[in-house]
């Protein structure tokens, strides 16, 4: 890509790696969670649902502050990771992955939950009456019917992780190739008065985000016809 220095490239590659890792992990974790939130029957459903959506309303600095304390050498998680020989998570790529997963969680879980809820009970009853077990019902009924939800979850989870800034600023430490993501790089360029470089990166991000959202809207079916 034109106009990018080697360091900008490193930040770009790092950001993509982070967003991809976070999206894959969130899909693995978020799908059962969303399934449970959509179809579970326990009283825990609502508090957990509120907890999952919390990052939507919390300032990223709140999340970053608590993560810094919790994951740091004096925090509960930090002591655990140190005891396990993993060191502490702040200022590492793994730390950013953990933070981003929390931060982007609602953007993956909510579309999945909505999609699972939209399917309704009928298709499952029919499948059950045809002799499909629970796993079969999930893989051959729920997944195919909920695919627009998965598409939205992937695009939003990926794009939102790319757009993350406040949490990274709090626990990242701005290390090239480790935690210096695109949004940090742009911030540094602006603070150093290097508007040209900031423009180049910002325009790429803008174009990418627009393209991703456009693709999502083009790929989604016009109307969800999952009830019949």
């Amino acid at each position, binding site marked *: 890509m034109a106009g990018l220095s080697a360091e900008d490239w490193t930040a770009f590659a790092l950001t993509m790696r982070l967003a991809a890792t976070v999206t894959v992990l969130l899909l693995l974790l978020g799908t059962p969670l969303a399934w449970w939130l959509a179809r579970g029957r326990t009283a825990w459903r609502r508090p957990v649902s509120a907890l999952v959506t919390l990052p939507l309303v919390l300032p990223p600095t709140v999340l970053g502050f608590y993560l*810094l304390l919790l994951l740091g050498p004096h925090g509960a998680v930090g002591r655990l990771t140190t005891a396990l020989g993993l*060191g502490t998570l*702040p*200022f590492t790529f793994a730390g950013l992955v953990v933070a981003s997963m929390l931060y982007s969680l609602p953007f993956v879980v909510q579309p999945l939950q909505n999609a699972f809820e939209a399917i309704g009970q009928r298709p499952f009853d029919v499948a059950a009456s045809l002799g499909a077990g629970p796993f079969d019902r999930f893989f051959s009924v729920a997944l195919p019917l909920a695919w627009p939800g998965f598409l939205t979850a992937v695009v939003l989870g990926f794009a939102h992780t790319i757009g993350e800034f406040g949490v990274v600023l709090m626990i990242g430490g701005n290390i090239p190739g480790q935690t210096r993501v695109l949004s940090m790089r742009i911030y540094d360029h602006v603070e150093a*008065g290097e508007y040209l470089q900031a423009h180049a990166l910002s325009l790429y991000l803008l174009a990418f985000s627009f393209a991703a959202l456009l693709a999502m809207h083009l790929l989604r079916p016009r109307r969800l016809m999952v009830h019949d």
Partner: protein
Amino acid sequence: MIKMRALLAGLFALALTLSTHAAYASQPQHMTIAAAADLRYALDAVISAYHRTHPHDSIEVTYGSSGKLLTQIEQGAPFELFFSADSEYPKQLVAAGGAGSDPVPYALGHIVIWSASVDASKLTVADLAASSFDRIAIANPEHAPYGKRAEQALRAAGVWDAVQSRLVYGDNIAQTAQFIASGNAKVGIIAQSLALGPQMAKKGSYAVIPESLYQPLLQSFVITRRGADNALAHDFAQYVQSAEARSVLSRYGFSLPNPPAEH
């Protein structure tokens, strides 16, 4: 209903009195300072000393990295005074036509090795090469003068290549100190003025880095174009150069440049 109306009329009259009173009281005695993060404790102390003789003036301070503050001022941020951690950024503001005065040197800053995890009082810059210091915090050299000086010192001591992969960069020198204070970085290079701050002094220990290892950190302030006709900005600018303010600054580890002959 009548009571309500009487109450409203009373409030209105009160508001009117207050506003006319305020307008007559004096010139605008309010300003906002943009200050480098190394001044977080020192400038607060200077301002509270100033308040003792000017109790009604209101001064607010926004702290950040000098480079960030310069960018914000150039983009019209409402600051009347700019206290930089170096003299380059104020010069740039003057050159860009955004200043209402010439830069005035007010302090010479020092960098220190600081730690809240180990005893740093005997450490030298070369010691930082030891692998036990798995994370070393400095301010971002791209827009924080204290970060630039930290990099110079590490290079001059010949350990830059050894420590580079273990560096973490604070957005400004105060965030750098916070990385170290929280134990997330075992050691780091910060401003002496922060190490001497009341919140920091009891948390850790420090060793002063020899001045031969880095370019002198002569810190200047400048009145912004916006502050050019703010009487408080000019008065405070004078005060910072007074003996009283200079003694406060020296308490926070700053050396003092010679006072300007005439200003």
